[in-house]
């Protein structure tokens, strides 16, 4: 089955990918492709947008309309695409630094507008491509090349952030749970509005090594033992449990979508003037 998916959705001549051995990003990419396949989306109608970083190399491997933008700006480019042609299925693949540091402003405003874009964050808690500097999701106390004495920043909870900013669909999974990533992505794409999925990934090369987290197998094992399904938590615990990685569908509250609201404005004038000159 994976082999067929690769033939169907990957640009075979662009493989192998450049991700390090043990990296979790390939799992996320595969999970997203399975969601697209399950939904039966038309390849010609899907537009995948990324920023810069390890995660953001993904669109290059995928056979859709793909756009590799500037660092942090994926959601701003995607907003232009979706607004200009609301018929396209727009999916953003981004990283923790890309989406929440340099792109933090674009993230909160895309969520606030509730524009119909599905965003999947490949969160490996580190800047991998530039060689291991701390990101807004690096845990306090952890080390990075720019935090040689331990990180004193406090970490973002990306799902909290996305919900607070107005996302109408929020979910989290880890690369230990690829089926959950697929399910959440499917639901996110189906949600007519801004959907945010955090996929917790692993970076054995920079984050793991620097912080003595062991091999990628050890890191996967950590994700397994530290994750807890949201269904087993109370509503209060769902947003306040910081000891565990809470996975599953965290928020699902559809609301009126941005491009549809704008279309209503266009429709007013179309009705008024009938055959208007374009």
């Amino acid at each position, binding site marked *: 089955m994976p082999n067929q998916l690769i033939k169907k959705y990957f640009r075979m001549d*662009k493989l192998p990918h450049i991700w390090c051995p043990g990296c979790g990003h390939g799992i996320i990419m595969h999970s997203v492709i399975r969601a697209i396949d399950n939904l039966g989306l038309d*390849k*010609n*109608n899907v*537009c995948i*947008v990324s920023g810069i970083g390890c995660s953001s190399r993904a*669109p*290059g491997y995928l*056979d*859709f*309309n*793909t*756009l*590799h*933008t*500037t660092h942090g*700006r994926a959601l*701003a*480019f*995607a*907003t*232009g*695409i*979706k*607004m*200009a*042609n609301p*018929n*396209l299925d727009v999916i953003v693949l981004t990283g923790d630094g890309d989406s929440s540091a340099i792109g933090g*402003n*674009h993230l*909160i*405003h895309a969520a606030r507008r509730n524009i119909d874009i599905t965003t999947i964050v490949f969160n490996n808690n580190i800047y991998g491509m530039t060689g291991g500097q701390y990101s807004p999701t690096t845990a306090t106390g952890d080390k990075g090349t720019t935090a040689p004495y331990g990180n004193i920043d406090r970490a973002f909870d990306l799902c909290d952030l996305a919900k607070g900013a107005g996302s109408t669909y929020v979910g989290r999974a880890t690369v230990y749970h690829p089926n959950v990533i697929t399910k959440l992505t499917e639901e996110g794409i189906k949600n007519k509005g801004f959907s945010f999925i955090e996929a917790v990934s692993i970076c054995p090369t920079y984050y793991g090594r620097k912080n003595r987290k062991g091999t990628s197998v050890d890191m996967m094992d950590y994700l397994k033992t530290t994750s807890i399904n949201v269904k087993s938590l109370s509503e209060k615990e769902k947003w306040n449990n910081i000891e565990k990685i809470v996975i599953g569908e965290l928020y699902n509250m559809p609301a009126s979508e941005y491009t549809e609201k*704008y279309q209503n*404005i*266009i429709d*007013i*004038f*179309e009705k008024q*003037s009938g055959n*208007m*000159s*374009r």
Partner: protein
Amino acid sequence: MDNVKLMQGNEACVEGAIKAGMRFFAGYPITPSTEIAELSAQKLPRYGGRFIQMEDEIASMAAIIGASLTGLKAMTATSGPGFSLKQENIGYASMAEVPCVVVNVQRGGPSTGLPTSPSQGDVMQARWGTHGDHGIIAFSPSSVRETFDITIAAFNYSEKYRVPVILLMDETVAHLREKVELPTDEEINIYNRIEPSNIKQEDFKAYRVRKGNTVPTMTPFGGKYRYHVTGLAHDETGFPTNNKEEAEKLIERLVYKLEKNIDDISLYEEYRLDDAELAIISYGGTARSAKSAIDCLREQGIKVGLFRPITIWPFMENKVIQLGKKFKKILVVEMNLGQYVLEVERVASKYCDIFRYGRVNGKLIHPDEIISKVKEVYKNA
């Protein structure tokens, strides 16, 4: 008389843009460009177009690139500090060859500077604001009617050469109200991007340049072909490459696709230049003062003429060299402490004496100042 109107430069810019086919505008409010966003918000949905106020200028620039990639003609408008923020993605549009129009109603700088005062301080920023080697087109109109015409030209050149075009306005023209007679639709030429055809998806190369051309054809996302777009150096397939020859070939083409077509892109006006002894070079709002100074000086028997570049970039090198050879003296007048004059000096200083006059206090240059400067130049002969 429907086409006779009283309007300001910013308004003419929007009218021209819509005539040119603009159907997408993304922006962030900043003085003195705000009327462009306001009018676009008002007008676009009436034409089935779309307006969005983004969270900042960086996002606005990104959004118009995204919109252009779906096939819509797209524009953004800003002023000084906002123009600085847009530079990152102006570079992206240059590299990925995405047509778009960026209006910069210049204001005094640096930084937040003089928000509501005129300036021509962004001549060099328009050329070199983003990093790396690349070509750029920038136009500077002098009147309200010309703002209408040049906005249309900006869209046409942008589509034709797949390049971001900068409309380098100044507050003098942007907020000036004039009676204008707009052209009829028959009098307006519109250029639409050329789409590739008769190619199979497997053989499609998004950045393939056919023999004899300098610009690849372009197809919208969601159209006939799936392809990849990146800001990285790429080969003709559109995919990133570290191959030195490929990268060099690309970047040279980005520069030379404009340099080689400079005659097509060069727009200018000559005023009372034929029998002149001294040439003034001035552009935008400042050129209006220069014209009136020339008329006064002529009455006093001093033969002065004007060369008014409308195309600021690419620099009209041959044209300015000709001026240098013809005139013993050239005076460059601009609302900055010397930007366009640097290029004039670069190419013409071996043929003639070049003088400059400019200032940066946020007041536009009065004809009297130009008259005294011309007299001083003559005295020093």
